[in-house]
């Protein structure tokens, strides 16, 4: 891959901000506009940008396929886990209020919702990045 100083420098500068913005969007899912899906896509865009600027091999070494697969499983598992936890405490699926935390109900709901959003964010991030790499890399034998 040809060296391109401008793209690489801009990427280095931009990636931290993109990541923070992505996290911000994810964590605002419960109270304002935002959520796991939107935030996850933004975080994924940071990884895609790295892939474009530094080449796919370099990025593959940093975020390996296994990590991505684990992340996508982990994200959904957080979502399902919290949902089932609510059933365990006698509420319906995702009935956060039943989870016994030493907090007021709105806080419990908010916290659990954030946790679920984070789970969604992780999965979306991992899957979006995977889609990018799968499209960008040619399969062997083609």
């Amino acid at each position, binding site marked *: 891959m040809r060296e391109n100083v401008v793209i690489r420098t801009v990427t280095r500068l931009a990636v931290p901000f993109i990541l923070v913005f992505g996290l911000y969007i994810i964590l605002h899912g419960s109270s304002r506009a935002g959520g796991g899906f939107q935030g996850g896509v933004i975080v994924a865009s940071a990884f895609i940008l790295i892939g474009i600027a530094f080449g796919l091999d370099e990025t593959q070494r940093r975020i390996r396929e296994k990590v991505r*697969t684990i992340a996508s*499983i982990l994200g*959904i*598992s957080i979502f*399902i886990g919290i*949902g*089932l936890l*609510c*059933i365990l405490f*006698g*509420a*319906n*699926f*995702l*009935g*956060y*209020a*039943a989870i016994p935390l030493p907090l007021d109900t709105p806080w419990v709901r908010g916290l659990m919702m954030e946790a679920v959003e984070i789970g969604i964010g992780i999965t979306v991030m991992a899957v979006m990045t995977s889609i990018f790499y799968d499209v960008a890399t040619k399969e062997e034998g083609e």
Partner: protein
Amino acid sequence: MISEHLPILAVILPLVGALTVLLAGWAERRYCYPVAVAVLTIQFGLSLAILREVLRGGTIHYYLGDWAPPWGIELVVDHLSAYVLVILVFLSLLSCIYAKRSIGGEIDPQKTVAFYVMFLLLVVGVCGITVTGDIFNLYVFLEISSIAAYTLVASGREKKGLLAGFNYLIMGTISACFILIGIGHLYVVTGTLNMADLARLLPPLYDSTIIHVAFIFFIVGLSIKTALFPLHTWLPDAYSHAPSAISVLISTVISKMGIYATIRILFSVFTVGFIVDHLPILEFFAWVAAIAVIAGSVIAIAQTDLKRMLAYSSVSQMGYIMLGIGIANSVAMTGGVLHILNHALIKGCLFMVAGAIIYRVGLRKIDDFKGLAGRMPYTCAAFFIAAISMIGLPPTVGFMSKWYLTLGAIEAGEWFFVVVILASTLLNAIYFWRVLEYAYFRHADAETPELESRVPVSMLLPMLVLAAGCVVFFFAVSIPLGIIDAAVADLLGGA
């Protein structure tokens, strides 16, 4: 404690199953199959439990996150949902069992893990559609299962499968857009997405043009999904070039899912008051369905490839179900809804046979089937039973649904549709007879090499179960009819 959470578990279980398959596939590729079969077996038990609950206590309502509708998302399982759920999960289970050997030659071994993961994700979508009581949820699940279906159709080695999958993707996405636009229109006017709430809020708005536009978008979108003639163009390629197990899966599960969604939108959202009294669309529906019945059969006669013939036959069979819905008296509806079960049993069995013939002797063309019955006796016997059920002869279940459809048409005074049903029966007989004649009565050419033609048990068992089902449900037709009567009463009562 578990019993009240059954509807949500029906969605969660295959999702967890999909993740488990992914993990299992990581450890060792051949663990995927037993895990997937185990998950679907449990899922089948679960769906039976749901059916039992519904039969005992009536419609189940489940509020997600304890938010009461119309604010929260509600899962609703009534007789129709439970009935469709059991059929679809059962067919998914059988085609998963069938998949083990049949995908061996059709799919890259590397893709096995992804294959079973997508398979279970498809089941997630299908189960979600049947249990949800919210139209946006319905759309999301429709997309989950459709996207899984596109990838599965394209998953084979055949290049044509890729093209078929792509076509299917384009058509499916157009249809999804239409459905989404329809949902958007309804939401703008009513401010709700809950089906029961919509049914309550819509009547005063029946004259609104927006509602009419929404309705038309829904109908066109769903007609593409169900491959109602003349919007069926994606279907023949997708059915005939997909891997065999997937042909079975999409011809039974995905097509029934579209039908179910159509029935839900027509009868639970717009209700009989709208579609019969206000905008007499059902009459039109019945005519289109009648054309589909005849056209599908005629084109099927012209096919030389068995899978393609079955695909066109599906177009015509979808027409039967729609005809029952279009005539819309309780008898014809019973026939139509019963045909959901029949067609799943019959078409599942026939596609399994077609897949087994390709797997064992590598033949796709009907003309090459000479003397096949001698080499593959059980497979051909299964084909024979399913074929006479498709034609509608007793003692098979196909007779029952045609009987009810015909009675319904007579009761409605629609003599033309009676003629259509009888004429298509003859056409069915023509194209299935051709296959049976080649398989049973033509002698094999002398130079045909004697191939090893025993079909593996994992392929033979599902097709024999389905063939047996065709006969069993002729005698035990009162079991599904008991559920269907309640379901039809719900639908026509405007519930």
